[in-house]
């Protein structure tokens, strides 16, 4: 009964804590049910040390300084203090080292120092005290025993990402208001998508390219963090680092361009643009989420709008394509849900944004950096825990990439989807798979990732070659481009599976570049479909004579896609091969042959459509093929400019992703016990 009431008190406390998301910065922590401590261990008969700390929370002024914590041995046996460290070790917070044996009733003090760097506010979870107090070891979440459950300063709150995530949603709500006419919808959507783009430009200018994990805040910038669901320790936690910054910018860019490409949509405009903006919120949220639960919610949030966008505005077999996409993706993500729960349940104790101690956490950074790869968890279903969870997560991501043999939804979805949705699908959605693998599989389960590295590289190579061969065989231009996506995403897999700096850089580069190049390709396919109402390659010929500007962009995009040096596609592929070769010799050689096939099917398609003689038999009336309109040109030019610029000077991307990827590689190296063989930082 006593125990029940204690738990009751704890629940009440957590219920109270739920309401105070708006706590001011540098808030001290509410002591949680201190009565709980007195209850445990009172029946101890044997001699045991008993650790207690005071004060329970410490607070720093913004200018930094020292704070002292007293550790007392309340037990009746000597207490060995083995180590005192700051949760989530950060150089800006230092705990003075204490290795000492305390006799009963003896005390010692520890000094915690905060050295602010003036640029980013820092947070720290609390102090971890390693000792021979068994109770403290068994109840790390019990605030009375081992933790100074305090936060110093909270990481500075930035509304930038929150605005980028939710502005499209607000736009969707506005355009659904009854007094807006359907024709207004596209303009409102354009405005709503321009805001994240504007913010992305701002983000690009202010993003700190030197900021790494060692700088603090787990390497994250633009953090916005608050407790969301206290009963499950879920936080609203968004932030970006080298892994996600380019993806966030890409999402804003591709979404804006896709709104431009949606201009010719004519039916149910309000519904279309509202769903489109909801989709953008989902994508943006997925890339920004650092809380795994939040990540999952955004991840699933994308499914519905995508289903309707393909299913309502798609081509002849739209219903089949839409449900196939929906079921495939959901089947993958339900397994991911189980994996998330398993990781959460086995995670170590930590503290939430408001300083409440939490037994488990959904914080991806803490799952990664405080749990040592989950290698100590006993096996499940007769399989190593890490491997089982890794596979559960990976299937969800692999379906999204899509990795062979889970790729069959992609050609269907692409062929049926309207142009703008294909652009989003290939430009952003596929990257979520590879991003998820890097952010989650690599960071949280490094040992299992090492175990699966060879398989990932093999499947990546199959993707490259299989996608290329399938593209060869396609009669439908859009299907050809769809399979080229399958092929190109294979490079990302090979690159990241290599565990080298170049491989990581290459994979990340390839993700960004594929996003821009493939967006152009789908817009170009849409342009010709709008005019001819067919995409069959053999029906065309000599288009360059009729649509010279179109032919120029077409040739440019195809060259970029096949990896012509000087255009951005080449950089990603080259880095992938450079990075992968030291790790997987034969696989890299095989994968590199994909470049030849890629060039072949691109050039062949280019030749059949643009060159040769005009197909008089098919198209007697040439006037239905006017050259690119102003709007179409406007959607293509920004992408083309980026492709060209990055082809000659990839540093804007490499500088942004560098520190984040470096941290990831180092973390992988530390947990698995060896740093990668080819981890020479070629790029600064």
């Amino acid at each position: 009964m006593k125990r029940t009431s204690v738990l009751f008190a704890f629940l009440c406390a957590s219920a109270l804590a739920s309401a105070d998301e708006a706590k001011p910065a540098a808030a001290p922590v509410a002591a949680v049910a201190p009565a709980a401590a007195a209850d445990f261990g009172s029946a101890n008969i044997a001699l045991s040390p008993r650790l207690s700390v005071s004060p329970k929370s410490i607070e720093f002024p913004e200018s930094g300084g020292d704070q002292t914590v007293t550790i007392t041995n309340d037990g009746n046996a000597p207490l060995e203090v083995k180590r005192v460290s700051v949760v989530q070790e950060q150089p800006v917070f230092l705990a003075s080292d204490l290795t000492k044996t305390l006799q009963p009733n003896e005390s010692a003090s520890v000094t915690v120092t905060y050295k602010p760097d003036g640029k980013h506010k820092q947070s720290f979870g609390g102090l971890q005290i390693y000792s021979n107090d068994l109770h403290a070891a068994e109840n790390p979440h019990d605030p009375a025993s081992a933790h100074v459950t305090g936060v110093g300063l909270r990481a500075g709150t930035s509304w930038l990402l929150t605005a980028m995530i939710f502005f499209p949603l607000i736009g969707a709500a506005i355009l659904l208001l009854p007094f807006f006419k359907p024709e207004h919808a596209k303009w409102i959507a354009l405005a709503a998508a321009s805001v994240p783009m504007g913010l992305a430009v701002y983000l690009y200018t202010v993003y700190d390219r030197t900021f790494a994990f060692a700088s603090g805040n787990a390497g994250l910038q633009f953090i916005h963090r608050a407790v969301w669901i206290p009963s499950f320790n879920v936080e609203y936690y968004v932030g970006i680092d080298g892994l996600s910054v380019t993806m966030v910018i890409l999402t804003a860019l591709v979404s804006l361009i896709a709104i431009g490409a949606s201009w010719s949509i004519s039916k149910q405009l309000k519904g279309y643009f509202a769903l489109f903006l909801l989709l953008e919120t989902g994508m943006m949220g997925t890339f920004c989420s650092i809380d795994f639960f939040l990540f999952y919610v955004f991840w699933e949030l994308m499914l519905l709008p995508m289903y309707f966008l393909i299913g309502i505005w798609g081509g002849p077999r739209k219903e089949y394509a839409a449900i196939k996409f929906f079921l495939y993706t959901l089947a993958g993500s339900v397994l991911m849900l189980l994996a998330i729960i398993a990781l959460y349940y086995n995670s170590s104790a930590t503290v939430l944004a408001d300083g409440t101690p939490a037994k488990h956490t959904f914080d991806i950074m803490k799952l990664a950096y405080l749990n040592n790869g989950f290698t100590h968890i006993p096996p499940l279903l007769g399989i190593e825990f890490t491997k089982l969870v890794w596979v559960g997560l990976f299937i969800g991501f692999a379906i999204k990439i899509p990795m062979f043999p889970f790729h069959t939804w992609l050609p269907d979805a692409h062929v049926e989807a309207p142009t703008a949705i294909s652009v989003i699908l290939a430009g952003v959605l596929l990257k979520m798979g590879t991003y998820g693998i890097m952010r989650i599989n690599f960071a949280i389960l490094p040992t299992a990732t090492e175990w699966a590295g060879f398989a990932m590289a093999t499947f990546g190579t199959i993707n490259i070659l299989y996608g290329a061969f399938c593209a060869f065989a396609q009669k439908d231009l859009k299907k050809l481009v769809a399979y080229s996506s399958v092929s190109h995403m294979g490079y990302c897999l090979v690159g990241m599976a290599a565990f080298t700096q170049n491989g990581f850089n290459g994979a990340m580069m390839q993700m960004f570049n594929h996003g821009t190049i493939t967006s152009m390709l789908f817009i170009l396919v849409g342009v010709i479909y709008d005019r001819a109402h067919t995409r069959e390659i053999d029906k065309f010929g000599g288009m360059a004579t009729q649509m010279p500007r179109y032919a120029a962009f077409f040739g440019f995009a195809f060259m970029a896609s096949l990896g012509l040096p000087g255009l951005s596609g080449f950089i990603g592929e080259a880095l992938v091969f450079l990075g992968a070769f030291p790790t997987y010799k034969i696989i890299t050689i095989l994968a590199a042959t994909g470049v030849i096939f890629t060039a072949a099917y691109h050039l062949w398609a280019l030749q059949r459509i643009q060159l040769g003689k005009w197909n008089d038999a098919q198209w007697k009336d040439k006037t239905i093929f006017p050259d690119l309109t102003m709007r179409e040109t406007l959607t293509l030019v920004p992408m083309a400019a980026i492709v060209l610029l990055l082809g000659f000077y990839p540093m804007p991307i490499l500088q942004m992703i560098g520190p984040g990827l470096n941290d990831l590689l180092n973390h992988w190296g530390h947990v698995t016990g060896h740093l990668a063989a080819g981890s020479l930082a070629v790029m600064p």
Partner: protein
Amino acid sequence: MLDNVQSLSHFLPETILSVTILALLLVDLIVGKPNLKRSAMIASVGLGATLLAVIGGWSSSRAFGLFGGLMAHDPMGDFFKIFFIVTTFFVGLAATRARDAVDYSAGPEKDTESAEFYALMLTTTLGMFLMATSTDLLTAFLSLETVSIMSYILSGFRRRNRQSAEASLKYVIYGGVASGVMLYGMSLLYGAAGSTSFSAVRVAVAGSSSSMVVMAVILCLAGFGYKIAAVPFHMWCPDVYQGAPTPVTAFLSVGPKAAGFALLIRFFTGCIPSSVGSGLDASNPWPLLLGIIACATMTLGNLAALVQSNLKRLFAYSSIAHAGYLLLGLTAASAGGTSVHEGNLAITVYLVTYLFMNIGAFVVIMAMSDAGLGEELLDYRGLGKRAPLAAFCMAVFLVSLAGLPPMAGFVGKFYVFYALIAKGGTLMVTIAIIGVLNSAVSLYYYARILRAMYLEQPPEGAAPLTLSRVHTATISIMAVPTLVMILMWTPLVDFINRSLLQWLPTTVTVIHAALP
């Protein structure tokens, strides 16, 4: 434990409900002219008073044994009473405009049997109150029968409709068999324990031979499983759901099912010991038993739902599948230790989300048939254009039933799978995997309705549908919590948590001596 007179003050909600039932019938007798609105008003006033009585007598963390231990007045019972009141109120509200229920014969006799309809519904509610508070095999059986008999009559309420009559008859026959089997199981437990009280049975059978106890529990599960429509006692479900008036279907799919789970929670945590057999042979057979039933239930429900073309039948199979998910929670709860609380919490949270989404979906069907639409999937083509609000809310309910975030259904599923994964072990993880794959399968048939509503064009010449205000209001009230629960579910879960605290593991632990 309180004696009969002391207990009466704790029996106020049930008393008020009984008075309301009598008042419903008497007023019609006295006034002489049946009136639907008046009956509905009396029923809702009665429900409101009952709600106040439940809140007024809130037992906080205390548990009282009433009538010498036949029933309990405890937070869990109070929670479920509120749950049943909400269910009955909203179904009753929507039923005021349901063409095929109260107004079953149309024309001049319109209001004739409205008083009986509401009296029967409230009697079922009373039965559910008793089910959720039973702490004795005897009260468990009697309350279960009360609910069952009322359900038979309600499902046959459309007297001149053959389907309705068939549904009622099937329900009676299956129900009779299930009750008999359950009674036999209970008699075995009584034989072993010499008492019908849950707590006495729990203590007495802990050491008896495990095969007898397992057999008795399996027999009892026939009765409980029948109430919640678990495989293999689900056969009545599709026919009854299809044949019964839609408000009755909505009511049966939530109310008695929840009552069944409340009783199951009490049965498995209060009556059945978590390990049976003696000495080293002691084992816990319940997770395996319940896990198999749960997997069979959800798999059969989902696979059968894939091919249905009648919406009420489709939702019948869907509700079987949901019973399966709920049984997953019970499986975790039966594993003992901290899982008891986690599993029961999962069941209860799931039931709350299920209340909103399932009643919501059925009220949409009700509203549509009120507006002149059929109950076939084909009739729903292009509904997104013909009735945008109803279609949107239906989409919300369907996505929620499929368990996709950000809808409420996801919260319920999350708790269920969390309970399983937190318990861990081969069995729990295996059934969790089967469970999530099932929820992926279920998406297909929910998406078929989405597809009909939004992806397909309405039939030629179809006019926009107008909904009655009652239905619009009910649908919206159900849709709002379904949509926003994800934003802030902590207060709800804390409340449920406090209602279930009595199931936290007690300090009784069996320590096995280590063998050399």
